[in-house]
């Protein structure tokens, strides 16, 4: 049977995450019978906290729909759902069609071609950071690296990286309690409820995407934006204007925000566990397992929501059709049933089926192999410089129940090579 208590503290409270993931609370939820019910605004949701249950939900997109109620915690009205729908908020066959439009660029084989680009950017950023001797790792390395890589792939001028990182920061605010910009920021006139993350920054990102799209329509290049606008032009059935806007938005946001989070938590973990960093320095073969452990440890996206389309039994609880279930990757990645010593940062962990790219279904992270490449190249280049990071203060975390973000973390950096 179901447990129908709301855990305290409230795992949807954005300010809770200023102190990091509430691991003790998630452990209680994981180890309770059945699924736990959690109140949220006018309604509530079932907390899917165990690794096995997250996997079941992720793999069964028919029973657990991404399209019906979309993938965010909050409920949206019908017009907002249509205006805000993107690749992640769709089910097959729409999802399959949209995903194939961008999938080719992100296959493991094709991502390998970007290795030298990723390495060049990484080397430039690390050398500048080492020359300074200290500074905010997020601003110096973790933020610029992924945004410059995704913009290069999209074909967006790299000079605009700073502007797009700024927009991303405003989008993340939209998942918290307070927004620092007014509803009419960036000339926005669209009601916020129709914009992704309820943020006027989404309007700015849509406009920016339209501008780049117009440029590529007039002057096609060998880049992702060109392939998207051509899919839109070839045949209106392949990609609608609204789908283009939302897909561009998703690629820019997901392509920089999540990897920035992963790289930031990786740097913090290596600074806090110098003996683990020493293992990577001593054995370059450790980069592969260290990359996966950093991904597990960082869990950049904390949750995703689904809505049931039929009655189903999940984790010992009976669910009716139309119920909201929320998968907490932050919990699944620390499930003691799957991970030995889950709260230990172990760069040599070999059994590491983490869900930082989702629970393995069709919505598995499009950029998974790009993110892996960026983390691995960063580790390789840090090791080549025998870089040592020392924290100069506590990380400043993002107050969000959706992204496990780090705003800044001051570090001293020394290259001993």
């Amino acid at each position, binding site marked *: 049977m179901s447990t129908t208590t709301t855990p305290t503290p409230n795992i949807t409270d954005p300010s809770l995450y200023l102190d990091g993931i509430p691991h003790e609370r998630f452990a209680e939820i994981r180890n309770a019978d059945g699924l736990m019910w959690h109140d949220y605004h006018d309604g509530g949701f079932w907390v899917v906290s165990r690794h096995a249950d997250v996997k079941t939900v992720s793999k069964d997109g028919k029973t657990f729909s991404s399209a019906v109620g979309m993938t965010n915690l909050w409920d949206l009205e019908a017009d907002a759902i249509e205006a805000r729908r993107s690749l992640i908020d769709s089910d097959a066959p729409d999802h399959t069609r949209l995903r*194939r439009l961008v999938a080719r660029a*992100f296959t493991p084989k094709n991502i390998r071609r970007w290795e030298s680009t990723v390495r060049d950017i990484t080397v430039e950023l690390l050398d500048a950071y080492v020359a300074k001797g200290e500074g905010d790792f997020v601003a110096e390395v973790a933020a610029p690296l992924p945004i410059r890589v995704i913009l290069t792939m999209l074909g967006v001028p790299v000079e605009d990286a700073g502007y797009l990182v700024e927009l991303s920061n405003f989008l993340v605010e939209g998942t918290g309690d307070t927004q620092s910009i007014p509803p009419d920021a960036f000339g926005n006139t669209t009601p916020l409820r129709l914009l992704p993350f309820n943020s006027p920054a989404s309007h700015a990102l849509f406009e920016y995407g339209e501008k780049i799209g117009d440029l590529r329509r007039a002057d096609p290049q060998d880049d992702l934006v060109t392939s998207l606008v051509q899919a839109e032009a070839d045949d209106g059935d392949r990609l609608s204007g609204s789908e283009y806007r939302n897909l561009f938005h998703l690629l820019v946001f997901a392509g920089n925000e999540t990897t920035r989070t992963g790289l930031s938590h990786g740097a913090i973990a290596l600074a806090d566990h110098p003996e683990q960093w020493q293992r990577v320095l001593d054995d370059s073969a450790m980069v592969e397992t260290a990359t996966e452990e950093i991904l597990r440890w960082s869990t950049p996206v904390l949750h995703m929501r689904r809505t049931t389309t039929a009655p189903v039994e999940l984790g010992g609880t009976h669910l009716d059709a139309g119920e909201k279930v929320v998968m907490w990757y932050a919990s699944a990645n620390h499930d003691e049933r799957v991970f030995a010593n889950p709260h230990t940062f172990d760069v040599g962990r070999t059994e590491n089926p983490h869900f930082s790219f989702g629970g393995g279904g069709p919505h598995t992270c499009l950029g998974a*192999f790009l993110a892996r490449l960026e983390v691995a190249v960063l580790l390789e280049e840090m090791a080549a410089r025998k870089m040592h990071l020392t924290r100069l203060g506590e990380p400043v975390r993002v107050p969000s129940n959706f992204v496990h973000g780090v705003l800044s973390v001051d570090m001293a950096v020394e290259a001993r090579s």
Partner: protein
Amino acid sequence: MSDEQTEMVLVTVDEEKCIGAGQCEMLEEDTFYVDDDTVIAKVIGTGMLERSRANLIVETCPSQAISIVEASAQESPVGDAQEDSGAEEADPS
């Protein structure tokens, strides 16, 4: 082979389900190829893998598009099943 895990089995891709993630191609590049135009994985070569390896790939595929073509109920040898289903694969619709 009496060992079930090392038995050779035929794999196939459901073109409607494939999302072009390319994980099959990464794991077994001699057996899978993601077509550049359709962004759908195709089975190339014999399409035969050891059962343990095939199981891993079936499990890894994010869209559950890959399956093992089990030998038919009349217990024909695996080699026959491969030829039959291989003909279907070679005729993309």
